């Protein structure tokens, strides 16, 4: 019961944060909303039985990505600038699209019967060790590719963002 309510709390965090991110005109609030939403998501991951991914979510998304976004915001938006008035038609269109999409997907989910496994995988199989083993054996190529992508991203980001010597 209590556990259920904690999960619902996480869901609420996800959705409230998402709403903040989606509807707030202040970029900073949107970032905070993103942080809250991601935190809730980490909680959901925990409830889905993967503390490691949850921790990684917090470490990289909140500790890294959110902070980086905040940093970029500080460098690119003056604090005193008022956000521009929203374009009502645009927002309406966006909300319309999202609502239609949501209900379409909800309809699909309701109509589909997923072939669920009888019992969820055991805790042991979910351990970090198995994960690491899989990453370095079966998914080795993906892992290496990812590291290469990250390297390139770093180099690219530096190249793009550095000041040109004039």
């Amino acid at each position, binding site marked *: 019961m*209590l556990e259920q309510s904690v999960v619902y709390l996480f869901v609420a965090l996800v959705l409230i944060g998402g709403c903040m991110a989606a509807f707030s005109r202040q970029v900073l609030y949107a970032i905070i909303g993103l942080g809250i939403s991601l935190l809730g998501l980490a909680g959901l991951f925990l409830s889905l039985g993967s*503390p*490691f991914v949850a921790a*990684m979510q917090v470490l990289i998304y909140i*500790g890294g990505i959110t*902070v980086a976004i905040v940093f970029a915001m500080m460098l690119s938006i003056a604090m005193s600038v008022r956000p521009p008035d929203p374009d009502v038609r645009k927002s309406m269109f966006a909300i319309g699209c999202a609502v239609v999409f949501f209900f379409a997907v909800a309809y699909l989910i309701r109509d589909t019967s997923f072939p669920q496994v009888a019992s969820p995988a055991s805790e042991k199989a979910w351990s970090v060790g198995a994960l690491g083993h899989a990453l370095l054996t079966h998914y080795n190529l993906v892992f290496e590719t990812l590291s290469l992508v990250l390297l390139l991203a770093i180099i690219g980001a530096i190249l793009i963002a550095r000041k040109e010597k004039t």
Partner: protein
Amino acid sequence: MKTDIVQLFDNPYLALGATIAVIMAYLSVNAIMLIWLERKLSARIQRRIGPQRGPWGLMQQIFDMGKLLSKELLTPAHANKLLYVIAPIMVFAPVVALSSLFPITRTYIFHDFNIAIVLILAISGINVVGIFLAGWGSNNKYALLGAVRSVAQNISYEIPLILSVIPIVMITRTMSLYDIALAQSAYPFVLVQPIALIIFIIAATAETNRAPFDIPEAESELVAGFHTEYSGMRFGLFFFAEYSHMIFACALATVLFLGGWHGPILPDAVWFFIKVYALIVLMMWFRWTFPRLRFDQLMKFAWVVLVPLSLINLLITTLVLKLV
């Protein structure tokens, strides 16, 4: 054998609440004591006497607390109210949440967690957001500049911090703090990983924004950095947070490098705290000994010295482990 205190209770959430209460209490008292210690120590280093109220000046902190609690909580005119209020809590909260993971004794621990190190590294990053919110929410240019610096510094020093922890994980093949401490029954890892310890201490000092890495709150440049506009108990929370972070970092160093509770004759908990406070004294010693770095030197030190050094250390550790 180890016993999770949490599991001694019928209701785990109640246990969690109780744990948090205990930790909060401990951290509060401890912060007061550390402030006293630091003032005394600095006075000693500077050949002064330091606080005088009460026996050995101990009452000075009680009075200061009273002053902070009774002060009016001012909010700057154009501040962003929500952020301004949330920020100190966000800075303080992660420490509280994570302190329960430390194995203080061989038998009784609050909670053993198989990926504790990842969790600690992950959640301790959140306080950066708090600092930033404080700086932005104050609507003050000194605060904002301090926050920007703080964020940059924290991001940069987090990398060598993580890299210096990884060798320990590689040696012990576990991420549970209890198991790591247990693995050091023969000798503490400082003997095999001295460079990692040094990097860890430096990075941790920077993470806690303490001198000589206290650029974000450099008095001479930025008044007081991100908490310039804070007063009363909100300011006090930042203060608490700083000392809590110190304890937290030193406890982590103790578990990872100094063998945790291991030690002859004395009980486990005593050994643990002796090591933690020794490290805290070391960090205080730094503060009053080394001059403050310039900001660009600070960043350069992280990226040019610490990161490569920790990478080399990691590489050597890998090679040695592979060969042995």
